[in-house]
Structure formats: structure tokens, C-alpha cells
């Protein structure tokens, strides 16, 4: 009897374990990852292109190469200032987290029109889940548009390019733009007059046609975001952003990464290019604290420029880098050749020292030799086009006008002689 009971207990435990595992897989649902500092960015790019006025963007805009025309709207962070570089890192983490979630539905191989597909369920209607296209398969939203129905997270993992056609509409029915993600592996193009929702993470580039209305984020750190006239991009509001995921260390003890101190430094050189021979350059640095606790013992070291001066930033004069502060530094030096400087910022909190680095490259132009195509009729010899020759003779330091001086002397002496010491004698 005891033996039977023992077997029953062991079998039951095994059954619970198996059911538990299978059950865990079955109940999997897509989740919205931690946004980090990307949460405030409506546009995050390396190059932001906006050739004409008429575009309105609400939310931060990050870039290193600015647009020809600044968009209208409110964007407290604009350009490459902090937390731009951190947001780029966070974008990568966000994408990694999204890609780690298994597909709940995979379309058949080949380009798929989400508006007309019926293989996933009701035509044009999608419920929360992870939708994946086949290998090397693009996706589009046709004219009929789609509806995202129900609260939850939507992940559209497109293994190719992603497009929306002109006048197409993404409608939210119980869903939130905060929880909709598009992760194409190739470029994204939104057609003119289309209405779009969600966060598009696409380092291959995101291009909007005219008059696009988009509630969400265009995240293309490392790529190009292009907007056109009458586009309106709005950061989703009332999002319940998830907290950072806990880390598990080797001892199985949970640590909370969001209380880990963080530091960020950016560095900009002015100018970034110098003429032949070089010249002076000024480096401007900004150190910020994207973490959650103030940093003390903040230092900034540049491996090339030694006279770094703190300009401003410690607004409460407590010598601690608060999370609301941006400490600005400057350093000037002369360069005679192309130089890459590395600035290293460090700070301490909770007995932990954190560092961040930023590079700046200043190009000192050098004479170039251009390899040109062979000129018509000339032999196959490669022609080389040099810079103009320096044919000018500098003013001769040894030059002395002896001839001229001699002539002047003769004339002077002759005139002197004839006017003062002459006598006349008749024949």
C-alpha cells in the first residue's frame, strides 16, 4: 500500500510538472517590453530628413544629421543631446526583447497583405499576439486597412520590407498604440494619407508619404527617418509603460536594474572639418544621468584635450549629477591632423562607479590626388591630377638693388660735383 501511495505521489508530481510546462507554453501571450529612454522619442534616427515645412511632431526627436526644415510641434529633446545615445541602446534592447517572443501565428511564405489575409482569422481583424511573416517575406497593409481588436500586445514581425498603401487605416478597437509593435527587417514605407498606429522599430529606415497621421514612434536609431508635408506624428499618451525586467544573478537573488546608476556623455566638435594645415577646434560635452539616483564624484577626461572646463549644469550646487541635470563642459585645442578624441565620463553612486564614453572625429583636410578616368584618346596610362603647384617665389630676403643703388650714386655724385665744385675756363 505504502509502495502504491509512493508511486501515485511520484506520478502525480511528474504529471503536474509536465502539465505545468505545457500549460506555460499554451498560455503565453505577447508582452510589451521595457522602453527605457526611447519612451519619450517620437522619432529616433541617425539622419532625420524633413525637406519642407508642414510636418508636426509631438515628442522628442533624436538625430545626428538634422533635417533641412525643423518640424512644428513640441519636442523637448531635439538632436543628439542626452539621452539620445542611451535611447539608441534602449531601442536595441527593446527590439531584442520583442524578437525573443515566439510567434503566435506565422503567415505562409511570400508577401502578405494584412488587410486581405484570412489565414490568421477574421479578415482585416487581429487580436493580441505575435504575427510573423515567412522567411524573406514582406508585409503590407492594403486599402481596406486592419483593425487591432482587444487590449494586449501586438507584435508584427516582418521578415522583409513593410509598406502601407495610400489611404490605408490602422484602427484600434480596445488596443493601445503603446502596445503595438512593427519590426520589419527591411525598410518601412507609409503611403500618403495613411493612418497608422504603433511603434515601428526599423534601423533600415522609415519613410512617410504626405499627410500621414501616425500615433506611435518611428524608431530608427542608426537609420534614416523621412517625413513629408502635412505629416502628423504624435507620441502615444496614457501608456502604462512596463517596469524594467528584473535581472537574476548567479545566486538567484533578484536585483533591480532600474536602481543601478547610469551616466551618459555626448561630445560635439566644432568645427568637424579643418582646412589643410589644421586649426583650432572646440569640444562641447554634456554629461547627464539617465538613471534613477544622483551621481557623485563625476569626472570627465578627454584623451586628447586636457583643458576641460565645466561651464554649467550643477543647478543646485551640490556637486552631484542629478537625474534632471545636464552638466556642460568645453575644451579647446589646436589640431594639425585628423583626430579622434575619446571622452570618458564617470560617476559614483551606491558604491558603484559607472562610466560612459563618447567619440568625436575632426577631419583635417590633406591635399588629395584624384584618380581620374583616362582622358579621351590618351593611352591607358592612369592620369593623376595634382593640386595646383606653388610656383610663387617668396620675397627674397637677400635681395638688394645694387644696380639701382649704383646708378643713383653716380647720378648723385655727378650732380653734387657739377653744382658745388665746378669752375669754368674759356677756350
Amino acid at each position, binding site marked *: 500500500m505504502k509502495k502504491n501511495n509512493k508511486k501515485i505521489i511520484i506520478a502525480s508530481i511528474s504529471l503536474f510538472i509536465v502539465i505545468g510546462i505545457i500549460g506555460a507554453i499554451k498560455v503565453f501571450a505577447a508582452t510589451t517590453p521595457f522602453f527605457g529612454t526611447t519612451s519619450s522619442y517620437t522619432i529616433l534616427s541617425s539622419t532625420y530628413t524633413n525637406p519642407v515645412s508642414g510636418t508636426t511632431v509631438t515628442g522628442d526627436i533624436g538625430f545626428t544629421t538634422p533635417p533641412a526644415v525643423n518640424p512644428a510641434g513640441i519636442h523637448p529633446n531635439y538632436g543628439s543631446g542626452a539621452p539620445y545615445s542611451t535611447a539608441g541602446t534602449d531601442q536595441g534592447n527593446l527590439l531584442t526583447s520583442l524578437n525573443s517572443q515566439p510567434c503566435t501565428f506565422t503567415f505562409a511564405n511570400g508577401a502578405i497583405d494584412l488587410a486581405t489575409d484570412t489565414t490568421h482569422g477574421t479578415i482585416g481583424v487581429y487580436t493580441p499576439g505575435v504575427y510573423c511573416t515567412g522567411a524573406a517575406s514582406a508585409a503590407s497593409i492594403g486599402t481596406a486597412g486592419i483593425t487591432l481588436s482587444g487590449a494586449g500586445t501586438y507584435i508584427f514581425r516582418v521578415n522583409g520590407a513593410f509598406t502601407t498603401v495610400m489611404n490605408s487605416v490602422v484602427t484600434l478597437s480596445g488596443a493601445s498604440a503603446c502596445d503595438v509593435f512593427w519590426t520589419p527587417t527591411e525598410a518601412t514605407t507609409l503611403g500618403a494619407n495613411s493612418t497608422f498606429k504603433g511603434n515601428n522599430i526599423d534601423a533600415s529606415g522609415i519613410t512617410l508619404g504626405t499627410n500621414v497621421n501616425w500615433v506611435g514612434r518611428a524608431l530608427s536609431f542608426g537609420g534614416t527617418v523621412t517625413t513629408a508635408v502635412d505629416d502628423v506624428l504624435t507620441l502615444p499618451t496614457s501608456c502604462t509603460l512596463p517596469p524594467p525586467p528584473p535581472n537574476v544573478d548567479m545566486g538567484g537573488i533578484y536585483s533591480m536594474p532600474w536602481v543601478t546608476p547610469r551616466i551618459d556623455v555626448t561630445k560635439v566638435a566644432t568645427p568637424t572639418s579643418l*582646412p*589643410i*594645415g589644421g586649426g583650432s577646434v572646440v569640444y562641447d560635452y554634456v554629461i547627464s544621468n539617465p538613471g534613477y539616483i544622483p551621481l557623485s564624484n563625476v569626472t570627465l577626461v578627454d584623451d586628447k584635450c586636457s583643458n576641460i572646463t565645466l561651464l554649467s549644469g550643477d543647478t543646485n550646487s551640490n556637486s552631484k549629477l542629478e537625474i534632471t541635470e545636464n552638466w556642460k563642459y568645453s575644451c579647446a585645442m589646436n589640431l594639425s591632423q585628423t583626430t579622434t578624441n575619446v571622452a570618458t565620463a564617470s560617476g559614483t553612486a551606491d558604491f558603484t562607479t559607472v562610466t560612459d564614453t563618447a567619440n568625436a572625429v575632426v577631419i583635417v583636410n*590633406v*591635399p*588629395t*590626388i*584624384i584618380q*581620374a578616368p583616362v*582622358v*579621351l*584618346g*590618351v593611352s591607358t596610362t592612369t*592620369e*593623376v*591630377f*595634382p*593640386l*595646383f*603647384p*606653388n*610656383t*610663387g*617665389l*617668396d*620675397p*627674397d630676403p*637677400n*635681395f638688394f*638693388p*645694387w*644696380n639701382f643703388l*649704383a646708378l643713383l*650714386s*653716380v647720378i648723385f*655724385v655727378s650732380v653734387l*660735383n*657739377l653744382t658745388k*665744385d*665746378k*669752375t*669754368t*675756363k*674759356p*677756350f
Partner: protein
Amino acid sequence: MKIKITTKKSPVIISIIGLIFFLIFFSYIVIQKKVLAYEVSQDTSTIRLKIESIGVDALVESVGIKSSGEMDTPKLIENVGWFNLGVYPGEIGSAVMDGHYGWRDNKSAVFDNLYKVKIGDIVIIKNNNNVITTFIVRNIKKYNSLENSTPVFTSNDGKSHLNLITCGGGWDIETKNYRERLVIFTDKEI
């Protein structure tokens, strides 16, 4: 009728004049020796460039390109340099020659008066076999010293050109360089 006669100071005056002539003669000899000593060390050809309108009749040196990327210049200020990585004058394409501008050792450089050349002037190249090739000045243009020189060294019209370069503009003390380059564009006479 009266005649002027020097009296007491005549020997002094004659001595001074003699000294002056001696100095002139001495300086001339010294300069000539320096030039001659320099000339004999150079490998000059017998190819000549002639521009009668400004009195230029110069030997042509072969020059290449400096490590700094600039076309090299002739060793002697009275010579011109032919860019030996390009075409030869008379061949199809743009041959290029340069010459110095300014003064040294009381001598003017070969292209000191190049700015006086006018459109329509004749430029002649006489090669080692005394074959003459004639070019006619078509255009005169000034460039910034760091400007793209490609138009001077290239052409794609299937014709022969000879382009002459020298310095111009103001002297920049810091860079020890004239700020401009004067370029004479010529076409081979057909």
C-alpha cells in the same frame, strides 16, 4: 664758350665711381656664378617654350607630383616644368606646364609677366628635334590655390591643349604661398 672742369675733388669722385662700378661688377659675377653652379647640376632638356608677346624663351624641365599632392615646380626660376604624368604638348588631352612667379637674386622668374598674356597670343613648343607646335591662347582664368584643379589637367573634347600655370594674387605670409593661380588655357593651332 665755357667748359666744365673738375678741380680739387676729381680724384675722390673718380675713386667713388670706380668703387661703384667694381661693386656692380662684383655682384654680377657672384650672382652669375651661383646661377651657373646651379644650372650645371640640373638635367635640362632642349625642349623650349616660347611666348614672344612677353619675351619668354625657356627650357622645359620634366616635373611630377610632390608628396603633398601638388604638381612639382621647375628647379630653376627661368625654366618651366612640364607635368610628366599627363600628356605631352601636342598630344590629345591637356598638357600642363608651370613656371615660377616673382624675383630671386635680382632675376625675374620665367612667368613673372605671364599675366600680360592676352587671348590670341601665340605659345610655341620646340621639341628635341626642332619640331614646332603652336598653341593659341583661348582663355585666362584665376583659381584659388586650393581650388579643384581638375579642369586644368583634363579635357575630353578630343583636342590638344597646353595649359600654363603660375602664381598670382597676394602673398600669404603664414602659408608662404600666393593665394591664387593664374592659368592660361591654349588650344593647338590646327
